[in-house]
């Protein structure tokens, strides 16, 4: 395990986050942080509470207990749209693109926040550079595209808001193994271009492969944390996720 020095460049800081849904305690005292320039991944089984972490950061899930700050600013009193204005953008699970909008319109919605509208043209060029396939289909309705293309669009749409921190919820869900690798390579590339990333995944190997640091979540608790490489070699990780 790395010593967690509290560097000044800490971007997202989550302390003792707990959350219940109905009577079910989904998260218990989760501590997690993302520093500038990092890819941090949260892995764990279905139902472990991974998505709930992201939904709390986006303020879609509320109320929860604990503290969350972004560049020192308290997130808990904010509405979802205010979180976006701070530069935290979530690409939700199962894509959730707008099915009856074209690719271009979806991208335009991505830059809805007033502060980023001026960069719309430049950002559109940028995401078309990352995903040439989207440029070919810019007039196609989102709902008529394949799962992989929708995932590209969802990520591209998220990038349209100039995120400082990109939250990715199960980007590999339902994609073919070949496509999964493509998506993860692009995520790494986005990070190289300067965006910090918090990634939630069931695909343990792929996400640990590209992550700087990782957290393992089991029934709402962080049970392991370390660098991606450390966890990749960890026996518990292998055992817990395939019963080997």
């Amino acid at each position, binding site marked *: 395990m790395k010593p967690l020095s509290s560097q000044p460049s800490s971007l997202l800081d989550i302390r003792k986050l707990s959350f219940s849904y109905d009577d079910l305690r989904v998260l218990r005292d989760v501590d997690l942080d993302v520093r500038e320039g990092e890819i941090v991944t949260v892995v764990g089984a279905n139902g472990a509470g991974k998505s709930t972490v992201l939904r709390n950061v986006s303020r879609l899930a509320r109320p929860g207990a604990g503290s969350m700050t972004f560049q020192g600013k308290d997130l808990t009193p904010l509405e979802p749209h205010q979180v976006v204005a701070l530069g935290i953008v979530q690409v939700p699970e199962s894509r959730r693109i707008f099915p009856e909008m074209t690719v271009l319109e979806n991208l*335009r*919605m991505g830059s809805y926040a007033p502060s980023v509208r001026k960069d719309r043209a430049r950002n559109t060029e940028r995401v078309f550079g990352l995903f040439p396939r989207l440029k070919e289909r810019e007039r196609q309705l989102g709902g008529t595209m394949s799962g992989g293309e929708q995932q590209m669009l969802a990520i591209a749409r998220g990038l349209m808001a100039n995120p400082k921190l990109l939250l990715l919820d199960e980007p590999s869900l339902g994609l073919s193994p070949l496509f999964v690798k493509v998506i993860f390579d692009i995520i790494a590339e986005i990070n190289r271009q300067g965006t910090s990333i918090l990634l939630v995944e069931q695909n343990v190997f792929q996400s640990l492969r590209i992550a700087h640091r990782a957290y393992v979540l089991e029934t709402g608790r962080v049970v392991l944390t370390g660098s991606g490489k450390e966890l990749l070699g960890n026996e518990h990780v292998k055992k817990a996720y395939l019963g080997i």
Partner: protein
Amino acid sequence: MVFLQSLLSGVLVGGTYALVGIGLTLIFGVMRVINFAHGDLLMIGMYLTFYLFTLSGIDPFLSIVIVIPLMFAFGAFLQRTFIHRVLNALPQNQILLTIGLGLIMSNTVMLVFTSDYKILSTSYSSGSVQLAGLSVSEPLLVSFVITAAITGALYWFLIKTDMGQAIRATAQDREAAQLMGVNVRRMGVIAFGLGAALAGTAGALISPTYYIFPQVGGAFTLKAFVVVVLGGMGSIIGATVGGVIIGAVESLSASYVSSGLKDLFVYVLFLLVLLLKPSGLLGKSRM
């Protein structure tokens, strides 16, 4: 000739139905609430127009400039005060709430202005113009032109502006819209305001050709449902087409069967669509 004549006037009347339906479908799309007080909003638009005309002499077609902002404000008020509190409630409770609001509106108007029928007669109320050999009621023609212009402006707003896109995004996926930075609560207020403004405008436009009385809304609420279900719940283009179809069906069955039974045809058509193609005749579309 009779066929073309009644088809034409049906289409012209249908324009107004479309306006009512678009408002209803907009509200449903953004909030998933069926507004049973929709016809009563139209009724209030009629009364506004009537009194603007009799008290200040403002022409009913001009009065929409005043009716639209007033009704928008009223709709926004209803949303902020009432509707927004039941967004997560059972659908039946949402329905009952809007039924209750409708009762309050129509009966308040009745208390204040009595249940007498009022007629707004202008110099052109019974005028007609010749169009390609067909005679067209003058107020109907004017109102259709205005309707078309408003509908066009609305399309432009929804497709071209950021706020219009945000409204459509909220309708397609409320949560995803929030993740784009859309304040969905504000979109609800705008959608209800727009819906009320459209219903009020329709009321203003038909006031020279209809009796004005407190209970007139009920029939329009039902008609708006028919229009919206026909076009597919939540589809604005659908509501436009649905409105025109309903106008035509009404007009044709009035001239070929009986004017008393024209509504019967509309409701039977409604039931058939509900049962056979509940997603509407057009299915999904961009708006």
